[in-house]
């Protein structure tokens, strides 16, 4: 892995801090990969997430960003989808693409983690959080 090549150390730390913050806040697993796709983006992200999680019942989210192909993919497991609806994931994608289109790769990803953590809520009260927020009702 050529971590030092694509990002400066500071950028790397910012992304890692945002990812870990989202994990701590939600109790879910978050993965991020910044790099190009080898195959079909949807299939590749599903295959990757299927093999990243310990069991398919885990709450887990995978974000794939391909800056060259200008494509972003968010993949949620079945149980994570109940906390982060496809609609909420779509809004996160919009946040990311609007930042990416002006060249702000790091800011877009950091905001995405924050927004995903907001949508998922805390592990204990995830159900109440979903019912409090009308825009997330698509998850049921």
């Amino acid at each position, binding site marked *: *892995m*050529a*971590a030092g*090549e*694509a*990002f*400066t150390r500071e*950028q*790397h730390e910012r*992304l*890692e801090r945002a*990812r870990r913050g989202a994990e701590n806040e939600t109790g879910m*697993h*978050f*993965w*991020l*990969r*910044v*790099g*190009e796709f080898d195959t079909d*983006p949807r299939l590749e*992200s*599903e*295959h*990757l*997430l*299927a*093999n*990243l999680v*310990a069991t*398919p019942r885990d709450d887990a989210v995978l974000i794939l960003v*391909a*800056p*060259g192909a*200008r*494509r*972003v*993919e*968010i*993949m*949620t*497991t*079945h149980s*994570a*989808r109940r906390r*982060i609806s*496809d609609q909420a*994931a*779509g809004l*996160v*994608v*919009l946040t*990311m*693409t*609007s930042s*990416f*289109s*002006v*060249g*702000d790769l790091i800011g877009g990803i950091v905001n995405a983690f924050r927004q995903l953590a907001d949508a998922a809520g805390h592990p204990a009260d995830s159900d109440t959080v979903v019912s409090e927020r009308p825009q997330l009702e698509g998850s049921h």
Partner: protein
Amino acid sequence: MTHPVRRSLRVGVRGACAVFGLALLCLPALPAAASSVDPAQIGQVGNVGSPQGLSLPLTLLLFVGLPLVGFIIGGAMAFRPQRGARRRYRPGRPWTHEPVWFGDESSLEHEPKRAALPGAGGANGRW
């Protein structure tokens, strides 16, 4: 931000600021030069500042050489390679870096456990 005219304008302004800054650095030398003049000679017009005419090489050095040196230094400061500029993402440029993972992806090194994830959701987009 990526517009070439705006970029060159920014570089030009930066170069001008650099030259101005360097000129400011020379300011402390002026009082020192003034104090080296013999007080008895002050007021004798045509005698203090220019006791004799400048020679041609000295004229060239003062009025051509020094400004040139200033511009070269200013230009070098403006165009010097910036740290981190190479790593900045620009939309539309190819991404030649190796994939970077955040989070523990070591489980991918083993044999694939599953081919699909039933009930998976998410979203995707382009920019």
